């Protein structure tokens, strides 16, 4: 019997591209290329370019990049909202800026480690270690109290009512819905396996499934499974442009004008 295998899905799932190690890396490179101030990012422009870049780099199937695209579009929408003049206003970009700076700082450490590692690699350590005739072992320093303390640690670590670690994260259905909308705006048709990366946490997979069902109920998309055990296909049900990416285009036009 021939089993249906979605070969195209497996190969098209290009998560890691050599030049970018993640969405923050891509975003930083955009900010550098555009020579914009990291503390005053023109979100509309950067968001549009981000979506464009992940499309051209075929990264638009990686959930992490989609999450970032959804986040940028959300920030853009928040910036468009009218704000009360008097109230203290928190810049919706602040959290993103903090994460970008933190990431950039880490990249700096990476460069440093890379240099040091390369320096160390250019020296060899002693490799020849003559076989010791029956290695004498030092007496073991271990008391019964230490052993019992270890038992206690193990018991405390596992003695919760069920043996599994409770997943400490709530489901994020709204977040998943945003990712699905962005993905459908980019592709109009997608496979369930595209939306659920293999390395995702259970809560993310569940959020995604609930988000799909929710959107199907709202009539925004259709969920179909062409054959038993086949891959589930998701198609955009709305013939009209999907609401999320549309503002990007409009907004850019006004920005350019």
């Amino acid at each position, binding site marked *: 019997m021939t089993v249906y295998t979605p070969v195209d899905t497996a190969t098209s799932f290009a998560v890691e591209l050599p030049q970018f190690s993640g969405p923050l890396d891509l975003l930083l490179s955009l900010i550098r290329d555009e020579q914009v101030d990291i*503390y005053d990012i023109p979100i509309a422009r950067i968001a549009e370019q981000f979506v464009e870049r992940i499309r051209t780099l075929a990264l638009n199937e990686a959930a*992490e990049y989609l999450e970032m695209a959804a986040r940028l579009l959300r920030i853009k929408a928040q910036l468009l909202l009218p704000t009360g003049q008097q109230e203290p206003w928190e810049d919706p970009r602040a959290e993103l800026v903090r*994460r970008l700076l933190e990431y950039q700082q880490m990249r700096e450490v990476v460069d440093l*480690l890379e240099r040091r*590692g390369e*320096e*160390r690699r250019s020296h060899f350590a*002693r490799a020849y270690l003559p076989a010791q005739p029956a290695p004498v072992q030092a007496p073991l320093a271990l008391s019964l109290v230490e052993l019992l303390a270890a038992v206690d640690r193990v018991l405390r670590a596992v003695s919760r009512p069920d043996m599994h670690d409770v997943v*400490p994260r709530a489901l994020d259905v709204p977040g998943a819905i945003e990712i699905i909308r962005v993905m459908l705006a980019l592709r109009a048709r997608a496979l369930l396996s595209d939306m659920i990366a293999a390395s995702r946490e259970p809560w993310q997979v569940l959020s995604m499934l609930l988000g799909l069902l929710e959107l199907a109920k709202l009539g925004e998309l259709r969920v179909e499974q062409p054959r038993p055990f086949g891959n589930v296909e998701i198609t955009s049900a709305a013939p009209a442009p999907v609401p999320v990416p549309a503002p990007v285009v409009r907004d850019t036009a006004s920005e350019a004008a």
Partner: protein
Amino acid sequence: MTPLAKLLEAALFASARPITTEELAALSPHESPAALAAAIDELREHYDVEGHGVELQEIAGGWQILTRAEYTEAIERAQLAARPQRLSAAALETLAIIAYRQPISRAEIEEIRGVAIGGVLKSLHERGLIDVVGRGEGLGRPLMYGTTPVFLEHFALRHLEELPRADELAIALRAPVPASLSE
């Protein structure tokens, strides 16, 4: 060379890893710390001045004899030794975060990197570069990771403090928009 310097050399030659100053001191328990330091200096200078193929380096809280960099290519070409593989970009990013934020959980690392780290932690752990140093507070009591002496050896660092402090990095985390960043 003095007898103590010769003894140190013999011990350092017999080890593939750095030997800590305490372990060196145990070689000749009657010597003063000053005599030990002098013997280490003597050995290092002997290698440098006499022009040896090896040198003495201070690494991971101890001392290690390593070949000089200028001979690495010839040794590798003759296939007498091979350089270890480079760490992947993902592994380096993860190590950088752990080095500065230890103890730190997997979720916190992923938050900073912006991507799931998949098998990276496992392979860093297998290479001995990181270790589980405890469990975090809070729900699920996540495993917390930290760097090991092997990490210092891998990057030829004397100790963790040799890495620049976070506020000494070019991109120190400043708060130019204090109101919005002070969450």
